């Protein structure tokens, strides 16, 4: 029982449920209390103990069905001919098992359930639970079959069929066995793949999405990226929301303490502490949304929007040839993807003009910048050989507390052609490459660590 439970729990973990060892113990204990007899009760009990959120319960249910569905009852029915034949041939041994190896003749006499167990055993020996890819199914099928005397069986069948039909008394049995073993093994591998392989390949796919350059992703993959962004942001929010309260308590506040204890004749029973007020930083994002960096901009805006909970005062400006404050558009809690698409459509056309964008930004946001503000510029610094307006940029960075530049281009391309990133970078506190989701995540984490 323990082995089975441990197997099930590792399948759950692979499916993304964070099951702790304490929960494993509780699961074992509840099985001890309730017993194995009632499958529905067992499922409810394990779901209570192991799945702690609503989405987790859904995943748990799927995983449970896959794991405890033995497959013997599904799809692969015992071949009725084998059963009937066995009853006719009394006793089975009487018919010569001429030339058959002992293990093969055992298999021939095995019931369907025994056969299923043999296949399962062979599968465990072959390490089918390590399956990762759909395409590996063939390899594992061969490994299982080899353990079940497959080559000999095929050979015997070949020999028998080359003789006159019906010559070998057990030819039909052997054909049935061959079909049954194959079907059972296929079924076993499919279940193992669903249980162990699919979650793993999902992890691999995620890793690929995180590390691929964003402009090489197709629309379907971008959609998956959005889900990933949501997950990343959830993690960051959880981490940094707690952080901001760390330094709240300061030294003893003598005045308030005395005042609060006046009713106790001035005896100090209750102490009051000074609270440190920390100004929260104000983030300004200046995002290039022109054609060349469009896909990056979409995910960047999604990040900024999603971080609203921890950066509530963030201001967002988008520009290509002209600049627009899109904060309100993003904050109107509606369909964020729609809002971003609208932004990109409205402003995204036209050639990039950093000079006019910076001038506009200076006029609109300049008065709001102070040493408590963080300026983030997102763009490839390709100004079509126009004036980069370095003076304006210098003035802006001088007013802001810190300035970071995110460049979605690979760093091998920086400062080639019309890119003037080096000129801008001189005034920045940090210059980062942000061509993959992973790099975007790393920057967001860095930013939150620095500012919150």
């Amino acid at each position, binding site marked *: 029982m323990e082995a089975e439970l441990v197997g099930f729990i590792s399948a759950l973990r692979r499916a993304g449920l*964070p099951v*702790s060892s*304490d*929960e494993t113990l*509780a699961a074992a*204990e*509840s099985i001890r*209390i*309730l017993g194995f007899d009632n499958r*529905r*009760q067992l499922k*409810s*009990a394990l779901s*209570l*103990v192991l*799945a*702690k*959120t*609503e989405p987790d*319960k859904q995943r748990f249910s799927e995983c449970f069905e896959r794991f405890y569905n033995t497959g013997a009852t599904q799809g692969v029915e015992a071949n009725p001919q084998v059963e009937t034949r066995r009853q006719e041939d009394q006793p089975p041994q009487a018919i010569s098992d001429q030339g058959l190896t002992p293990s093969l003749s055992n298999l021939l006499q095995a019931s369907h359930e025994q056969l299923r167990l043999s296949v399962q055993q062979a599968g465990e020996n072959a390490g089918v639970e390590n399956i990762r890819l759909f395409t590996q199914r063939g390899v594992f099928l061969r490994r299982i079959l080899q353990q079940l005397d497959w080559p000999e069986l095929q050979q015997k069948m070949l020999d028998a069929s080359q003789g006159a039909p019906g010559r070998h008394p057990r030819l039909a049995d052997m054909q049935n066995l061959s079909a049954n073993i194959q079907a059972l093994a296929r079924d076993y591998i499919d279940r193992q793949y669903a249980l162990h392989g699919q979650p793993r390949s999902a992890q691999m796919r995620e890793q690929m999405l995180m590390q691929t350059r964003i402009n090489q992703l197709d629309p379907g993959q971008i959609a998956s990226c959005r889900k990933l962004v949501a997950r990343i942001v959830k993690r960051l929010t*959880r981490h940094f*929301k*707690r952080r901001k*309260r760390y330094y709240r308590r300061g030294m003893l506040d003598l005045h308030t303490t005395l005042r609060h204890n006046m009713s*106790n*004749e001035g*005896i100090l*029973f*209750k102490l009051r502490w000074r609270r440190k007020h920390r100004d929260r930083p104000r983030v300004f994002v200046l995002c290039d949304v022109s054609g060349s960096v469009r896909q990056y901009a979409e995910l960047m805006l999604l990040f900024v929007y999603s971080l609203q909970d921890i950066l509530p005062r963030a201001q967002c400006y988008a520009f290509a040839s002209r600049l627009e404050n899109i904060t309100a558009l993003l904050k109107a809690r509606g369909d964020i993807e729609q809002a971003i698409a609208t932004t990109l459509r409205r402003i995204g056309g036209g050639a990039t003009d950093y000079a006019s964008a910076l001038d506009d930004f200076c006029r609109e946001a300049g008065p709001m910048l102070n040493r408590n503000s963080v300026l983030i510029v997102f763009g490839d610094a390709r100004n079509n050989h126009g004036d980069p307006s370095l003076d304006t940029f210098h003035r802006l960075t001088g007013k802001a507390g810190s300035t970071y530049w995110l460049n979605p281009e690979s760093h091998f391309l920086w400062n080639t052609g019309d890119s003037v990133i080096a000129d801008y970078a001189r005034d920045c506190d940090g210059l980062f490459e942000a061509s993959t989701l992973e790099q975007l995540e790393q920057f967001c984490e860095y930013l939150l660590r620095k500012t919150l």
Partner: protein
Amino acid sequence: MTMDIDALQSPAELATALGSGGYIASEEVSLALYLARHLQKPLLVEGPPGVGKTELAKAAAAALDLPLIRLQCYEGVDEAKALYEWKYGKQLLYTQVLKQQLDRILGDSSGLAASVEKLHAMDDIFFSERFIEPRPLLKALQQEEGSVLLIDEVDKSEEEFEALLLEILSDYQVSIPEIGTISARRVPLVILTSNQNRELSDALRRRCLHLYIPFPGMEQEIAILRSRLPDIAQQLAAALAAFVDRLRQLDLNKQPAISETIDWARALLLLHANSLDREVVLSTLNVLLKHQADIDNVADQLPQLLPPAP
């Protein structure tokens, strides 16, 4: 720290005991309570408002014949409101009353150091269990016969408070710096409820069994109506449940909860309504729906929602 395994030997028996108290428990709910009791783990109950999460704790207390101790969480609930507080007034009163005693005791000691030494001994007197005002969490641990501790709407509290709960939820003990650790005399059955206003921390979830109560199915809702309002005719109860079930499929600002279904049924009984017709429903819709927009919305769709007249 001991706990008798209850006389209730199976989830089914527990469901019967809950049922006799008027709480119709689904199989999963009774199993959850049963396991929480036997594994000695807290039970975290989530679900939409009004599906009977708080009621479950009350019913459990009645079924197990234990006192119910309730802690209502809100933004700003802290140690002093939830766990314990020193009885400042009593401490003060005692120091005043015992002033002369103190003078006498301190009088014969020579020098400051000796007096302070004697005062140190006093500390322990004034900071002892006698001067502690137990709040719900501590009170639940102190019950000789055990108790049902309901920590209601835990999602309304702040994250710091959740951390405070962790010790009591995993070890059934609280640490008071001046005194030490106080363990439960008997392990209480702890039930936490949450309306999912805020994500609870993983640490809290890990320590609890997790039960999600959705809106009841029609069968169950009829059973609840019949149990709460024995006077109601089977036909009316069925029609009510079917109507509410259809309402819950609509996109409403606030879905009608079980308690509202019961209130509505009670209103219909008062009006001596035997069946659901357009006028009756229109005039009583405000019992069931609490937003004007929802009422208007449903009134428009009423012909499709009501069963065709026989």
